[in-house]
């Protein structure tokens, strides 16, 4: 095997296949491009076949997997583009820039669909914060999200965070971006038209981030700090100029195709755009604006410098596009032209450095997964002792359940004037524009459940995300997923990959939800520790009238407190079981029928009108959900519960909600019609205190006591 192929990180068979397809040996530049294009990060070598099993069609789908971002129809001529992506390894090495460029990358994917980026969500996973390294990474990542999002003018409206030892050296940073567009504004990445031009728009090219995709496709090494030069550097100020210049060019000119420059830089974008369009291109590397003088042609081609887009348009329109770019102070250079012949020709000062069929780069040979099953969890749980009032207070202080506002208060949540409901409880709500439809959006995954069963954990991630948008009165219409997994080259990692995809498939089919795309991040292992399989689900719920979403209007004292859905009967996989050391057992699969009935209930106008607030049971079960309602509204709750069993109070059923209602009877009647069980628990009060009368006795919590625990003010 030639030296170049070894450096490229390809297997002997892959190198052989490349030579066979080319009909010759490859040059150093070609091996370098292939290393990126055939990396796991770009080629989905281990996951592609499995991902094909996910349902991708639905009444709202306008663009699905394969597009830069999924696009869902919201009605009234509006659509929503959304995608989630990981930036894990860069964040492990350089947390601030790693997170910042993660946001930038996903934002440009949404921009490439012709949408205006409207909101970010961040799903973060760290090791326990008593580890100084984890605390350092968490601080840096949160600062990076704020640094990029606040300045680029896109609000961060949601997300989730969990702390688990498996993330100690390999934190996860998943960023989701949501954008809005009018139907006619949607763009594709498929280049077309012999003689059309490639316009490189955005920042000048530097040496940063070279080999980033290959870096993302191996396990993190103990001396990962040496990989810092592979981390890209984001410039949100420039990113803002790029958004405005891109949207103006798309508005003013007939742009044929557009894509952002991500993994593999200019080579990656040009190859993917040409392959999608079934065409080829000639790229003149000497035409690329540089910010470092001595870049070699391979560096120019593969640099992952941020804040760049590649546009395909008629050469006649180039001057007009450049005029727009100039006004915003961004670079715009014609760097190539489309050819009908489907080959990629890379030139430097007119000298041809390489010519190879587009498909050789774009169609990486797939790899088979090793056989093997995930290790089984023992499954026996000890009986719970009677619940004590301290259990709730202790639970509210847990890092996975406590107040998240110290994180999201450092994010601009409002810029853009689309944020109807800010972060804090369940899903955030966005409007596309004044008077336009909107969405409820959330990201979810529970490491505790995924550690017990990757498949069930993935199913519950979909169910929880669906519950969160339902809680805003929205109907789930599609999801994007980010699969963070250990190495697929080990049997356990391979099993986890199969299991999470199967879990998402089951849930998506059961809820009739299309999976509109996403991202797979494998090799999340560091220092021989593999992460818990982490399939993060980003859910989109449709709200025709977002200003009337559930929870927008404040709830008054004297409102009825209702429990909708069947109560918990098991502690399997619950926070309570973990806190009490009761052992691990597989929870039941989500009750999809109940979730569908709940969706029907919030669609019933007579119930919807009366529901003031809806909050799903998740981590911590019923008592935590009730405490969260009290904390969120500042209201007291005076309640009578039918059971003092731990499973009733702290079990985590998959389709249960606490509701505040102006009229209990109307909601109860609609619940009966929808087949949802409904219990009236009591009333909200003005004193702010949580008072629970149950068969075993009365538990009372002052608002200040709950707040002190939840804010971890010892």
């Amino acid at each position: 095997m030639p030296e170049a192929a070894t450096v490229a990180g390809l297997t002997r068979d892959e190198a052989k296949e490349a030579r066979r397809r080319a009909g010759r040996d490859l040059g150093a530049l070609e091996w370098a491009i292939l290393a990126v294009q055939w990396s796991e990060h770009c080629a989905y070598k281990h996951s592609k076949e499995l991902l094909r099993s996910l349902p991708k069609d639905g009444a709202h789908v306008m663009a699905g997997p394969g597009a830069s971002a999924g696009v869902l129809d919201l009605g009234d001529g509006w659509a929503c583009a959304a995608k989630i992506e990981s930036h894990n390894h860069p964040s492990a090495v350089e947390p601030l820039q790693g997170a910042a460029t993660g946001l930038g990358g996903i934002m440009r994917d949404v921009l490439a669909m012709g949408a205006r980026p409207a909101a970010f969500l961040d799903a973060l996973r760290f090791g326990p914060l008593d580890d100084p390294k984890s605390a350092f990474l968490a601080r840096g990542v949160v600062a990076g999200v704020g640094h990029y999002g606040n300045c680029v003018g896109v609000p961060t409206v949601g997300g989730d965070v969990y702390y688990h030892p498996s993330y100690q050296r390999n934190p996860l940073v998943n960023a989701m971006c949501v954008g809005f567009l009018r139907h006619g504004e949607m763009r594709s990445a498929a280049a077309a038209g012999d003689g059309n031009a490639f316009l490189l728009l955005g920042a000048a090219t530097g040496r940063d981030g070279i080999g980033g995709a290959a870096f993302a496709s191996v396990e993190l090494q103990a001396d990962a700090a040496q990989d810092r030069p592979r981390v890209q550097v984001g410039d949100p100020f420039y990113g803002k100029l790029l958004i405005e210049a891109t949207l103006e060019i798309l508005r003013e000119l007939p742009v044929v195709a557009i894509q952002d420059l991500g993994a593999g830089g200019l080579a990656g974008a040009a190859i993917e755009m040409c392959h999608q369009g079934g065409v080829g291109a000639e790229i003149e590397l000497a035409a690329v604006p540089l910010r470092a003088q001595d870049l070699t042609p391979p560096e120019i081609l593969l640099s992952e410098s941020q804040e760049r887009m590649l546009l395909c348009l008629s050469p006649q329109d180039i001057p007009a596009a450049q005029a727009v770019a100039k006004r915003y102070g961004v670079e715009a250079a014609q760097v190539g032209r489309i050819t009908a012949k489907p080959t990629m020709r890379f030139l430097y000062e007119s000298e041809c450095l390489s010519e190879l069929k587009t498909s050789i780069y774009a169609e990486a040979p797939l790899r088979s997964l090793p056989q093997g099953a995930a290790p089984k969890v023992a499954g026996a749980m000890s009986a719970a002792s009677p619940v004590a009032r301290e259990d709730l207070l202790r639970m509210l202080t847990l890092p996975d359940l406590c107040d998240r506002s110290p994180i999201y208060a450092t994010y601009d949540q409002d810029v853009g004037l689309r944020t109807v409901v800010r972060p804090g409880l369940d899903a955030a709500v966005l409007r596309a524009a004044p008077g336009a439809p909107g969405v409820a959006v959330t990201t979810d995954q529970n490491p505790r459940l995924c550690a017990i069963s990757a498949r069930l954990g993935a199913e519950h991630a979909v169910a929880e995300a669906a519950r969160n948008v339902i809680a805003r009165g929205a109907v789930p219409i599609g999801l994007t997923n980010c699969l963070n997994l250990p190495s697929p080259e080990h049997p356990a990692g391979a099993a986890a990959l199969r299991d999470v995809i199967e879990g998402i498939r089951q849930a998506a089919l059961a809820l009739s939800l299309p999976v509109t795309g996403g991202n797979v991040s494998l090799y999340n292992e560091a220092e021989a520790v593999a992460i818990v399989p982490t399939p993060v689900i980003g859910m989109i719920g449709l709200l025709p009238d977002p200003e009337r979403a559930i929870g927008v209007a404040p709830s008054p004292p004297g409102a009825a407190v209702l429990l909708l859905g069947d109560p918990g009967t098991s502690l399997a996989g619950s926070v309570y079981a973990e806190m009490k050391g009761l052992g691990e057992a597989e929870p039941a699969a989500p009750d999809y029928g109940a979730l569908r009935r709940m969706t029907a209930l919030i669609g019933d106008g007579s119930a919807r009108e009366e529901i003031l607030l809806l909050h799903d049971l998740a981590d911590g079960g019923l008592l935590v959900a009730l405490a969260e309602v009290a904390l969120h509204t500042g209201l007291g709750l005076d309640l009578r519960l039918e059971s003092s069993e731990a499973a009733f109070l702290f079990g985590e059923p998959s389709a249960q909600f606490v509701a505040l209602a102006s009229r209990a009877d109307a909601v109860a009647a609609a619940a009966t019609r929808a087949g949802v069980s409904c219990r009236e628990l009591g009333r909200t009060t003005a004193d702010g205190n949580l008072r629970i009368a149950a068969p075993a006795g009365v538990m009372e919590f002052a608002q200040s006591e709950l707040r002190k625990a939840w804010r971890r003010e010892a």
Partner: protein
Amino acid sequence: MRADILVFPGSNCDLDTEIALREALPGWQVERQWHDGAHLGESQFCVLPGGFAYGDYLRAGALAARSGAIAEVRRLIERGGLVLGICNGFQVLVEAGILPGAFQANTVQHFVCRDAHLRVERARSPFLADFAEGDVLTLPIAHQEGNYRLTADEYRRLKDEGRIAFTYCGPHGESGDEHNPNGSYAGVAGVLGAEGRVLGMMPHPERAAWPAVGRKDGLGILAAALAPRLEGGGH
């Protein structure tokens, strides 16, 4: 009647301000103008919006304050027009020397985004025509360098001249460090120019001009330019 919003590279609340001004000033022509070549000759009201003009490089507002558009803003002020600087726009007005003071990083040393309560102070300005001294407004803040610094002498002079427009307070108007989100001197959240026709404020009135979701306290500030209010000039 016409209101203009100046857009600098990195401004990111300009579109929001346009939406809010259309809500607050029905019938007005509302335009966003790119700073380079901006012309305020037909304008009665100019807003410098929030954001990160020039990426806040050097100091927040420092580079935008050197834009040619600032001369246009000065001419508008001389003509008796209204000028409102919001957040980064306030920082630009201070860097341009149009308003006094200076900015530092928030004392908490990070970006803060949340609703803040503001007490309307004893001041004369069209921007306050809708309010009485002691009124409490709820407006969102979102900034990293909102710690507004004045010397004790400057503060006294502004106070005596009725140029302190807003101070941070508790939900019932009470003062105190615990209600000051960024460490600003004496909790000052907004100051007025000499004639009361220039207002700089860190909180975002344009984010509270959305009555349908219960955020409405910014509307009165943005409606300052409505003709009848220009006569009376506040309390």
